[in-house]
């Protein structure tokens, strides 16, 4: 067996293993979705808790009006929730927009905290910690500034959280508001449904594990207080906090009927910056938590750490191997002599990939069609390859940050004016 054969074998085993993991998660996720879809998701409570909705916002004037209006439209008892917008060192007219909304809704409890570059501007975790100091609710709900949650989202999340003491947090589903805006948002829409929602559902179904997605989730105030707030060093505070919640022995549940719509990056360079931040954050969390793989007391969390390790290490290296071998073979520099390493094996892998994604689109309305199927194929050969670039870039940046002892720099996703006429903006 040659060196190239060895690499090929590794790539085949790694890719097929990851594929089978995803298939298994999709099967679990699908069953969970079908079960949930037969209900309305509500669990009536005797007493509804006070909820503080935290919305960190930095230069969000393009989207913040729509977001706050959607939050004000929740069907949750009006007197039992407050909205705290942390206008974090914004240089645009966000403060004016927010003040205008406050003036128009004097009967509603809405707090706007305007920070300057001394106290704020240090990223989402810092903004959330600032908001936490003013929060009076026993339950915290977090929404990004580009979200338009559906009216029942908060009620569904809170009801499910409070009806089960084992739950530390409940997360909802997020969808792409501007999916028709560009090719990249179409890809993000499919990726979100397949790899964030369906995989989360599968992980919850099989292992009672979910990772907080950063928006559209509720968490017990007591937990956040106990862990001392959000880690300001973590670029993906959502994954980091999920792991800390696991370690406290709580579960995190997915309630897919609680939906929020969010704006995704429409331009490639913005997408690259956002995903690099996520990948850097996840690599940081993985580095910090990998030790728990060997700690029996960490419980089911160990599975999640392994899952992240598999996604980031196994998938990245196997994709690099297979792509390199493919290019070298085409150029005539390498030749795989391994028996059974053929085109058909790859065709089978593509088939499984496409079907796996299609199943997640099938459960959604207006997502399952021939256009989506073609997009999935296109996505496999373009968008998926960009993921390798993102992770490599993130790994390199993390390495440089560690070597040169650079402070972790928060990149705030730039918002766009939504040009897509088909997506609704106003929830009223």
């Amino acid at each position, binding site marked *: 067996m040659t060196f190239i054969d060895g690499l090929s074998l590794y790539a085949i085993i790694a890719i*097929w293993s990851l594929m*089978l993991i995803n*298939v298994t998660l*999709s*099967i679990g996720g*699908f069953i969970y*979705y*079908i079960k949930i*879809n037969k209900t*309305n998701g509500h669990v009536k409570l005797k007493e509804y808790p006070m909820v503080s909705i935290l919305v960190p916002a930095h230069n969000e004037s393009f989207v913040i009006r729509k977001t706050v209006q959607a939050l004000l439209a929740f069907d949750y008892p009006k007197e039992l929730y407050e909205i705290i917008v942390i206008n974090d060192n914004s240089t645009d007219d966000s403060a004016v927009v927010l003040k205008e909304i406050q003036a128009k809704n004097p009967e509603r409890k809405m707090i706007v905290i305007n920070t300057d570059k001394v106290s704020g501007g240090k990223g989402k975790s810092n903004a959330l910690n600032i908001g936490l100091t003013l929060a009076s609710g026993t339950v915290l709900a977090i929404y990004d500034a580009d979200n*338009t949650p*559906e*009216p*029942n989202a908060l009620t569904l999340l809170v009801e499910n959280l409070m009806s089960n003491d084992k739950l530390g947090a409940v997360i909802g589903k997020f*969808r792409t*508001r501007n999916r028709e805006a560009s090719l990249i948002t179409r890809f993000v829409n499919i990726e979100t449904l397949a790899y964030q929602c369906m995989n989360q559902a599968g992980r919850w179904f099989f292992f009672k594990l979910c990772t907080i997605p950063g928006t559209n989730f509720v968490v017990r105030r007591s937990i956040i207080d106990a862990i001392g707030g959000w880690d300001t060093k973590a670029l993906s505070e959502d994954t980091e906090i999920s792991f800390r919640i696991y370690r406290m022995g709580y579960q995190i549940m997915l309630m897919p*009927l609680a*939906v929020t*719509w969010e704006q995704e990056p429409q331009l490639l360079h913005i997408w690259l910056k956002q995903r690099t931040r996520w990948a850097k954050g996840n690599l940081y969390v993985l580095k910090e938590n990998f030790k728990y793989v060997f700690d029996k007391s960490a419980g089911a969390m160990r599975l999640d750490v392994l899952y992240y390790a598999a996604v980031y290490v196994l998938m990245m290296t196997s994709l690099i191997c297979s792509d390199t071998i493919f290019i070298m073979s085409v150029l005539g520099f390498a030749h795989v002599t391994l*028996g*059974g390493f*053929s*085109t*058909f*094996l790859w*065709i*089978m892998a593509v*088939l*499984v990939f496409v*079907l*796996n994604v*299609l*199943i997640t689109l*099938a*459960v*959604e*309305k*207006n997502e*399952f069609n021939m256009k989506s199927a073609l997009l999935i194929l296109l996505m496999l050969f373009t968008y998926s390859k960009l993921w390798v670039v993102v992770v490599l870039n993130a790994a390199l940046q993390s390495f440089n940050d560690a070597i040169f002892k650079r402070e972790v720099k928060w990149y705030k996703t730039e918002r766009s004016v939504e040009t897509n006429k*088909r*997506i*609704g903006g106003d*929830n009223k």
Partner: protein
Amino acid sequence: MMFKRMCYFVLAICVLFVFQIDIHAAEITQDVEARDVLLVYDNELLDLTHENVAAIADILTYMGYSTHYSTIKESKGILNNFTHIVYYHESDFIEQSFLDELSRLDNKIMVVGGGDVSSLLKILKLPFTCTSIESTRVQLSYYLDGKKEISMFAKSQRVSLLKGDFPYSSGTIMVGNQSTTLCVRSERFSNIAIFDSKSALLKAILTQQITLWKWPYENAPNIFAQYIVFDEVYPFFNTQKMMNVISMMKKLGVPYAITVMPIYQNGEYPAMKHFCEVLRYAQANGAAIFLKAPIMNTNKPILEDINKRISIAFTAYSSYGVYPIALEAPNNWIHEKMGQDILRRFRTIVLTLDQKENSWSGKAVYNTIYSDGHQIIAPALSVGDIEDNLISAYPTALFLDINTNIDDLRTQIKKIQESTVPLKNLWASSHSVYTEDKTLSYKDDILTINGEVQSLEFVPFKYNIEYQYNRGIIGRMADSFARENKKLLFIVFGISILFIFFIGIARYQNRKKFLYKSDSNDDLGEENRN
């Protein structure tokens, strides 16, 4: 009186003592089935000596002797069960218990190798002397049946130099400036002073000496035939070249065999049909067809898989009227359980020497392959020219290359014809083959497949030369599909069916939910999406 009592007492003790020894001797006699030959060897086998014992075991098997294997230590108490003992000996020392046991018996013992036999000569009361010397280079001279004297050099760790007046001696050896006889025999004792499995001549000498040693009559022992085999003829071979060779063999009137390589796919190609057409012509003109055994290319081959492959290959040929009557397999298969299991389906087996180390092991205790009742055709041995076969004590195969220039082949065949080892047509013997779905039987000139008589006469058949090879993208994909891991295919197929089923359920549920029933909760989402 007292003296008399004392005498009775001493006598009684002596009788009891002798009786006890007999009881003890009876206890250590092992219950070993009587076989033709006992092959014993020194307790510690090194790599080289292992190869030599393995070669002797092979020779005894080829000669058709049921053989029991044992170290000197393990042979304690079983010597009495054998009339003939071959002792491979390379050391200075022979265990006293072995000598003691041997001294009480009268069976024949042949010592092979350069070990010191002085102690053995002593207990056999033979008036010879032995000096065992370490040596690396020995010059041999020997007369094989009807052949001129063959002289050559051989390498050996040790040589035993026996001196004396021997009733029978044959061949000479020269080590440095010392010269003595190579093979000697006196009463129940025989000795071959040197043995090396890598030397074809020494193996031939051993074979001849065993033949003479075992032959109970005054006249010369039987002579076994040799078979010309055109080895490893691949399907789709140049048929014109084959026809030239077949025509030549027909003209010379020489019996021969062709070993065809197994074929597992593409048997329907016109080239295969044409190849089989030529083979059928050869078969009709006296050529026997052998099937080459499949290559075991995995560390853990599965018996069922190999048998299945043989069945596919057998069917590929027999469906075109070509009937393989024997399996050509590596020699090691006769020592290995799986090999024996595969060979058991063929009455006639042709063995080839491969480059691998001989897998014989003393742990096998006896040559199991003997009990399977095969007609074994072993590889011929020659020194120099391939056609100069040294073996006539068991059936041998002379492997020739069909790619050789036709004139050179003719010269080779003529030389073989002149050999003292006769040629024989394999169609003169009975054969049987069992595969997964077919039983071939050949007896008294009648060949049957699954009980139905098959004609061996050549009748040309028609086939379409125009053939759709299916070599486009789809064809290549089909080939690829066939080669893939079936388990993975099964998994992918299962996943696909399950996912399509899931998609169906999801679409049904969505239609029910959104198309036929309005859900107020979804209004906002709908608004968002539209």
